[in-house]
């Protein structure tokens, strides 16, 4: 199970508590989290399911490279952090 943590700033709009979720890729893990918290999906992913332009996802401290398909691997016990990019102002 990976541990998924969300930026504090998203909590003002939609509650996103730390959540444990299984999955071998970022897509699988986030899909599992959003299945239990559907309102959060559109805050993180755009209409095409890619990471929003001004959002970033880290896996164990490394920034995710595949922002479109979210294919970066996630190890069991990994920590996935969904953060805001500074580019969004």
């Amino acid at each position: 199970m990976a541990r998924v943590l969300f930026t504090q700033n998203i909590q003002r709009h939609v509650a996103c508590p730390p959540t444990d979720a299984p999955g071998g890729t970022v897509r699988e893990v986030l899909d599992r989290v959003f299945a239990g918290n559907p309102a959060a999906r559109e805050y993180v992913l755009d209409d095409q399911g890619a990471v929003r332009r001004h959002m970033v996802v880290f896996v164990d401290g490394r920034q995710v490279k595949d922002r479109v398909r979210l294919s970066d691997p996630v190890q069991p016990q990994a920590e996935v952090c969904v953060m805001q990019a500074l580019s969004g102002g």
Partner: protein
Amino acid sequence: MSDRLLVATRKGLFTFARAKGRKRPRWSVAKTAFLADPVSVVLADPRDGRLYVAIGHGHFGVKLHRSTDKGKTWQPIAAPAYPPKPDGQEEKDLNGKVIPWNTELVWALEAGHASEPKVLWCGTLPGGLFRSTDGGESWKLVESLWNHPKRREWMGGGAELAGLHSVCVDPRDGRRVAVGVSCGGVWMTEDGGKNWAQRAQGMRAAYMPPDRQYDPHVQDPHLVVQCPAAPEVFWAQHHNGIFRTTDGAQSWTEIVAKPSSFGFAVAVHPQDPDTAWFVPGVSDEERIPPSGKVIVTRTRNGGKSFQTLRNGLPQHHAYDLTYRHALDIDETGDRLAFGSTTGGLWVTEDQGDHWETVGEHLPPVYAVRFA
């Protein structure tokens, strides 16, 4: 007569209410909502009093909210979302910029026809038009327009992407809808959105080479409005001038206003198609009020002549610009309000002869609507 004014700003929604004063009426802030969040447009649905706002979060995307209790409480509703982009389909505009299939901004939110009480229309960047048939619970991209081959030729104006900012529903027939696109001209459907035709013939684009200037597809109407009592008449404040049609957008005629024909906003009197108001800037290259004085221009004769209205407006080193949705007129045609990029807000109750300053330090104003 509207005693409430909704003001959508870069940092929240402000509701102004009118109260009787000792000498004259006072408009003041009665309510705030979404403080610190960018509210791109607001709609007060005249059919059922429901309010809608679009929030454009910098990080978290576009969201819509609805209030059924006049703004006391708000509930999130669905935001318009583009369907999955077909695999391998590469879309670039004429400048080579990739056109995203993603709602980047909600730029128009309008009620449908009175006979279709749950229908709403929504215009977006990058140019998609959406329709809801359930009061905003769900949205569907109007694919007949999005898939029109000419749509891919639309281009950005002030924004990098093309945007659909005006939706005019014909009060006689809800199947007749006109939309304005920056930059893509004016499109009209007469069958409820099955088929669309370009209807910007007669508009002139000074920013194009001579042989393309009258190409309707390259026109940049900043805002298109329709006279409710005379729906054959539309006014457009365009990138390089003012245009008017009296034949249901079959043909447009250019109108020259003094001291300037440049601006973003236009309002037409709800009963008198010859009366319209504008908030001019100097030009597209000089987006400041003429001589540093905030003015409103008004015509009462279909654009043959204009009066400059300045009574009560800042006349000394004022650099307020008014965006396209930041001027509104109420259903009587007597009250108008407009807001500015530097947080000014003014109301008139006599068609612009006298203005009252009701806000001086608001965030940049995106949209103003009487409710």
